[in-house]
């Protein structure tokens, strides 16, 4: 009988240790994900801050490209809104989905704007524009690298959370899913491509490849 009680106590203590350890690991993983998202958030904010300057600089040179400019301004407004909705919480899956699609649209609109800007030599020679392009390029790269890291962290968190013993705890203690972030422009959001064989307009560059 005594042996039974001792075994029981030992088991309870062991299970207790296991629970605490698992809980702590879950928290650690979740914090890593949040921290990684904060890194992206900083860069997204930087990107949004740069755009008014860009539009201001470009406006004088590209009076005929109103639509392209307006697309960028609108996309920025939507993306800023989505960023505020997420408010640093990557477990808010709906808001994250909106953020991903609106940032993707912004990236696409920016890419088109910079592609069109290539056709204006005066604009390219403008030092302000050169600085802005460099700032945008580095911000895009930082977003890309930070997203790489974020998705790695999400991968670690999700994998741990869905393996067998932790999966029991995760749901009980309310550890929610985190969303992978894919900031590429969704294909269905692109304009229809008009095929015409005498069209020599430059191709929009991929995001993160703006300088070359």
């Amino acid at each position, binding site marked *: 009988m005594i042996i039974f009680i001792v075994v029981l106590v030992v088991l309870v203590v062991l299970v207790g240790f296991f629970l605490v350890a698992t809980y702590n690991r879950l928290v650690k993983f979740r914090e890593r994900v949040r921290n990684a998202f904060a890194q992206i958030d900083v860069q997204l904010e930087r990107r949004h801050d740069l755009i008014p300057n860009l539009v201001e600089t470009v406006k004088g040179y590209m009076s005929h490209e109103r639509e392209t400019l307006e697309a960028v301004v609108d996309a920025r407004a939507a993306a800023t809104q989505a960023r505020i909705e997420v408010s640093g919480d990557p477990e808010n899956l709906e808001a994250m989905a909106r953020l991903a699609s609106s940032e993707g649209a912004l990236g696409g609109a920016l890419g088109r704007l910079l592609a069109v800007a290539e056709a204006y030599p005066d604009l390219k*020679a403008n*030092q302000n524009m050169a600085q802005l*392009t460099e*700032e945008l390029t580095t911000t895009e790269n930082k977003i890309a690298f930070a997203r790489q890291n974020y998705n790695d962290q999400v991968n670690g968190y999700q994998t741990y959370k869905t393996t067998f013993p932790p999966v029991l705890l995760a749901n009980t203690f309310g550890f929610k899913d985190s969303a992978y972030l894919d900031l590429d422009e969704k294909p269905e959001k692109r304009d229809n491509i008009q095929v015409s064989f005498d069209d020599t307009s430059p191709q929009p560059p991929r995001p993160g490849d703006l*300088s070359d």
Partner: protein
Amino acid sequence: MDFQSHQEEAKQSTTKLIALLVLGVLSIIAVVTALLVALLYYGSDEFQPVTALAVAAPVTTIAVVGTSLVKSSQIKSGGGSYVAASMGGRQVDFNTLDPAEKQLANIVEEIAIASGMPVPAVFVLDDEPGINAFAAGWSADSAAIGVTRGALLQLNRRELQGVIAHEFSHIGNGDTRVKTRIIGWVFGIAAITVVGRILLQQLWWAPRRRSKEDRTALLIVAAGVGLLVIGAVGTLFARMIQAAVSRQREYLADASAVQYTRDPSGIGDALIKIGGMGRDNKVRAAHATEANHLFFASALGASFATHPSLKDRIARLLPDWDGQFKRPAPAAPGETPSAGAGTSSGAGQRGGWWPGQVVLPTGAQAGSPIDTSSLVGGGSAEPLAQGGPTAPSPTFEPPSFGGPTDAHVERTRTLLTQIPQQTQDFLRTKQGAVAAVVGAFASNDPQLRPQQLEVAGRAVSMEPDYLDAAGTVITDLDRTLQLPAIDIALHAIRQTPYEYKVALGQAIHDLESSQSDHDLFRWVLRRVMLRHLEDQHDDGSVSYDTSLGELKVEAVAVYAILAQFNSSGTSQAQDAFDAALSAIGLPPEPVPPIEQLTFDRIDRALDRLSRMDRASRETFVSGAAAAVLHDRKTTAEEAELIRVVADAVRLPVPPLLPVVVPDRADPAAAPTVKS
């Protein structure tokens, strides 16, 4: 193979090589111990084999291990920034306005995010035209990354990103630590050779001994020769292992660079360009030999040692490579250098100094007529227009020596906002600053100016037309704004490499000596410019110990010219002169005629006056201010002249504050000079 298996392979071979090295060190200790045991046993009757072993083994172990540990900790204590500075690196300010350096700083931040490491200190080796880079530092926190100027100029953004990622992985993989330990071991083994040599030398120089000691001498010779041979053979093998480890770490860093950037072509193309540079890619710094293992590409011509061959490295990165190296065309059109931001490649530049050409602000054009009214000032400078030609000119308070107050800061800001933003941006680039200063200081004489620009253009490798146009950026400004504008330019010029400053100093000096137009303001400004350039390498040997009492003659000469510059008639000049003299406590005397006052003489006077103690310099500047402010009709330009003179004697003063004169000022345009 993908980068992961490359990394795996490189790590495994490093482990094997390190194991081999440790084994080597152990067997060297064993062999040396055996040698010592044998010598002790045969050389002395007191030693049994066991006691000999008990003495020899610890001694040898402590000697070899101790030496290597001491050496490692020596290297370790330096820190990354120390190493970078000892190679002639200049630290990059992350808020720099230089486009190429800004891009470098941005790239470093990007890779820091990609690799999850802290942002290291970044250095530029200004004097190195080859393409190279290095990482130094014991840990990620104390690390530094250095990049040659050649790499900044000749690599595009993607390639530079690859190179920086490579250096980051040296830090991240702990290569600096591995390499430092290995250097320690190699040093420990080499120390055995040194001991052997010392033994032999001792014997060689020792006085002749009696035959009784012949046996001891023989033993010492045996020990010396033995240690020498063991040490030499050991060092040879250790160096081979060291080089092999280094090569593996280079492969590893290349693979990790791809991991960080997910772009093998960036670093691959950079290596192809290095291959195209061929033997021109050597690093010149004196410490390069010691630090060869630190570099991105072998810093030495012979690639035997620390780096795998470029072909191997490129082949691993770019399996489709055609085997052709590309020689980078320095600043050729089409080849966009990494400094592409803010520059347009092409016309207007010569020589290899500048990555492209900074675009001139609108309005500045070669051949545009120079507004001579603002430059050929002189004795009858018109009061600055303010609200109309008849508006009264403001007068100014005397200069203050107690450091700037809020009012001075406000005044500076007012002045700065009057300089167009475009002009400020232009002057903040190094090339723009140099061009504008040279162009502005060249003569206005239509015959002399082209000659001067031609000569100066050769000195600073820029086209005369560009200098001509750039000069108008400063000279078109209101003269009140010219000193602030030159301040901005000086800031950029300070960032240029040493030889550029020397060349610029020479160019300004030439301009000054071939000058024919006499304009006091510009002339003193040029002096200030020269002094600031020379102060870059002030060795602190200048002492400031003379007093105004000893230099009355010099002070009087300067006052005389100021008084005459400022006045239209002799009596006015005399009054201004007297005011200056009484300000420094001298009795009035007749003002010397202007013919006696050559620029040469003023030059020497200012030189000597600038060596006075601080109180004397303050008194002197007060006197100068009295001469200029005397007539109560001081123009803003004259107020600037006081500042220039103050600066010429190394006593910079904040901008002079306009005095509000209620009875004269019209309400709309009170104290400020011009909007």
